[in-house]
């Protein structure tokens, strides 16, 4: 019976892999509608780079408005829409695409020793759903009323008051723009869910022989945990988005309460509650943070091991810490809602539970630091970014202590402290992780090195700019400066306000530093120094295959014989042992 089943599995697997394996494919099948995970990974990266131009451009635009009010040629209506779209695009269409989808697609099959994703066709579909999603997101700027303007959290009633049918209009951006926003997000969720299913199936079922779970590189572990978190949490947002769409277009009252009066017009809604949406949204929203942050930390572990020539400290404890973070991450979403009118008892619970997460995160942080102990650090660009990540994880992480404490959050909620904190975590940590990964795997992707000088320029600009920018925002938050404000006039905010031009200058530095990266990326793709198969002398499986990686990844799949990080082996600790080395 088992054999019959295996044959069936094989058949399906064969259909999936055999489709374009070994046949010379045309340009379109090879680079556009490719089912090869490596090509799809690069496609995601390019898509993310394209969207980052929009997302970062928007951020600079409103930073100018904030630093020098009136100089940016912007109305308050445009401002809220731009802030909303900057958040949405950066979180879902830049960071998620580049880190989770892009590098994940590229690295997972190579690191576990699989020929491709479990379901390559679904993988291709995931990417091609993102294309219309991105297009819709950007096109929403040009519809009547402009793009969505309810914040990236899209809290109703503002986001539900669409102005369609009997529903009154809450703000200009609540019209068609918000509907398109929801549509794009729905497509994104579909794509991300399919991607997550592929990750889980690939990691659990397609590992090379000998690759037990506890021999997987930490990158794979983090992608695995992130995929599980995504699969468990995104459905809640799906439900919320469906209900929000019904509220907007069919006059239901899931989130719209009785007695609404919007700009003098009385709404017909009865009985809903906006708090429900917040719960559902953050049931996704908090795990989503870990979906983004954990893979960056995983990549940092791999990169640091490769460039410090020793295994990362505490592999097992890191894995357990990841699993505990995942579990706790699912049950603490309410710390985003301390001042939302939630039951104060829940505020206490969420505060206490959230602070428990500091423990596994401390373990990860200590493990990252201890991985440098008695190492021989090679300061490549990739390593610099990984080291920057350690600093950012620490700095951003301790900001979490303030926000997770309900009492302190009374002061910090919805101030620039929150902005600084989450930009450090899901902006700087994720992007340093992504860049570390890109510089690390670029030779595997294109068979060429990226230019190190430009790379270092990129690092120093990014790190100094981003670190200063977001740490200063913490101080503005201490000063009580509220976020999403077009202009400030209050007395208490004046000291914080004085820091605004500095923040904007650092933003220009951080964004400007991406120009050498873009140039470097495309230039090196064709003109970079040729790379051998294992330029970093790293030990994980992706470096055991030829460069450029053949279709199907290996001639013969590797057989794993040991730990992922065989550094500092040999009599004097000067040898490294590949993961598939003969015993």
């Amino acid at each position, binding site marked *: 019976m088992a054999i019959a089943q295996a044959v069936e599995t094989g058949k399906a697997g064969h259909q999936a892999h055999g489709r374009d394996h070994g046949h010379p494919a045309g340009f379109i099948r090879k680079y556009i509608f490719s089912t090869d995970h490596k090509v799809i990974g690069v496609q995601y990266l390019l898509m993310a780079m394209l969207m980052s131009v929009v997302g970062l451009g928007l951020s600079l635009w409103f930073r100018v408005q904030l630093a020098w009010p009136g100089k940016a040629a912007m109305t308050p209506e445009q401002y809220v829409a731009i802030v909303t779209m900057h958040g949405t695009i950066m979180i879902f269409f830049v960071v998620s695409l580049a880190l989770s989808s892009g590098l994940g697609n590229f690295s997972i099959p190579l690191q576990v020793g699989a020929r491709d994703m479990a379901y390559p066709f679904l993988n291709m579909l995931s990417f091609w759903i993102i294309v219309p999603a991105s297009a819709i997101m950007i096109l929403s700027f040009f519809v009547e009323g402009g793009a969505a303007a309810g914040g990236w959290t899209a809290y109703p009633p503002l986001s539900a008051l669409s102005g369609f049918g009997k529903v009154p209009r809450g703000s200009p951006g609540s019209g068609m723009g918000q509907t398109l926003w929801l549509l794009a997000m729905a497509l994104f969720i579909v794509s991300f869910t399919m991607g997550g299913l592929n990750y889980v199936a690939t990691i659990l079922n397609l590992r090379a022989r000998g690759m037990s779970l506890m021999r997987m590189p930490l990158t794979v572990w983090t992608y695995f945990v992130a995929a599980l978190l995504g699969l468990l949490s995104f459905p809640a947002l799906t439900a919320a988005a469906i209900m929000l769409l019904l509220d907007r277009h069919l006059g239901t009252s899931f989130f719209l309460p009785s007695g609404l*009066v919007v700009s003098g017009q009385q709404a017909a809604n009865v009985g809903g509650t906006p*708090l429900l949406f917040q719960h559902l949204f953050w049931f996704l929203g908090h795990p989503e943070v870990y979906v983004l942050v954990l893979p960056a930390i995983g990549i940092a572990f791999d990169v640091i091991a490769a460039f410090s020539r020793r295994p990362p400290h505490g592999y097992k404890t890191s894995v357990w810490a990841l699993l505990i973070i995942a579990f706790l991450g699912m049950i603490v979403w309410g710390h985003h809602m301390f001042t939302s009118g939630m039951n104060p008892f829940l505020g206490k619970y969420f505060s206490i539970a959230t602070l428990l997460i500091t423990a596994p995160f401390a373990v990860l942080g200590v493990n990252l*630091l201890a991985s440098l102990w*008695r190492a021989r650090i090679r300061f490549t660009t990739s390593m610099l970014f990984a080291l920057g990540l350690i600093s950012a994880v620490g700095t951003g992480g301790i900001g979490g202590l303030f926000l997770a404490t309900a009492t302190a959050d009374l002061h910090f909620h919805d101030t620039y402290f929150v902005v600084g904190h989450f930009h450090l975590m899901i902006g700087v940590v994720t992007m340093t992780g992504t860049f570390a990964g890109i510089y690390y795997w670029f030779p595997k992707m294109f068979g060429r090195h990226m230019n190190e000088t430009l790379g270092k320029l990129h690092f120093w600009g990014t790190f100094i700019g981003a670190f200063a920018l977001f740490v200063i925002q913490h101080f503005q938050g201490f*000063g009580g400066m509220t976020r999403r404000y077009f202009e400030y006039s209050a007395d208490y905010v004046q000291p914080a306000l004085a820091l605004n031009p500095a923040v904007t200058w650092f933003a220009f530095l951080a964004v400007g530093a991406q120009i050498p990266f873009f140039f470097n990326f495309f230039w090196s793709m064709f003109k970079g120094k040729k790379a051998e198969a294992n330029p970093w002398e790293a030990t994980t499986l992706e470096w055991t295959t030829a460069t450029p990686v053949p279709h199907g990844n290996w001639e013969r799949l590797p057989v794993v014989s040991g730990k992922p990080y065989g550094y500092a082996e040999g009599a*004097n600790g000067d040898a490294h042992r590949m993961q598939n080395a003969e015993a």
Partner: protein
Amino acid sequence: MRSQRGAVSAWLLSSLLILATILTVGAFFVLKWRPEVASEHGRGVDRMITYIIFAAGFIFVVGHLVLSTFLVKFGGKGTAAYKPMTHKTEMLFTIGPVVFMVAVSELGVLAIGGPVWNQVYTHKPDDLVVDITAKQYEWISRYPGKDGKFGRKRPDLFDDQENPLGLDRKDPDAKDDIVVRGAVYLPVGKGAWFNIQSWDVLHSFNVPVLRAKQDAVPGLTTHTRIVPTAVGRYEISCAEICGPGHYRMRGFVNVKSEADFAKWLKSQVGWFE
């Protein structure tokens, strides 16, 4: 050549990290980083924040010092002098941080934060009750008048100019309700219990100087308790995005001495009187 380049990076990055640490810590001393505080629980909030600053600052400084030391000490070419740790040391480096973090963070929230949190959400019997209503983009406060009772708010009677709270002329409770647009008046040293509501979208009743922040949720009455400790005029800044006019949704909390407040209250006439 390469090893020198490596050493340069090591020194650069590690001195940058030290500099960042010094600047960040120094900024706490140099910058006027917190608004003044003028409420009882606000002092508790600040106590809580100060506690976390020390705990987090310790981690921040130690972490960055260790990182920069490691960079200089272990940067360069050659082979790693790494030796596997014994199981015991490894467990020490795991359990140590876990115990430290849990102890420090939970101790803070339970011992310092918890009581303050309770203070904010406990209605005391002799509190002055103030009703706050938010709408795009205005704060409206209401006092119950002589009878001590609030009249019912009816959405169908809402009129932006004439009747922003939708009060019923025939309702005896509503008759003497005192309605103030854009401002709240409080006596100093006396507890005030707020009933916060909203007509349209989410707003947040945020008075940074009083360390008060509570969302106004349509369809729901949320609460917060403030005991002002200093006379003054403190700005309300909406802290929940409520549309393009979010930034200009301002108001003022006027904290007066008890005598002044009584005088002010006496001078007010009910909305329908």
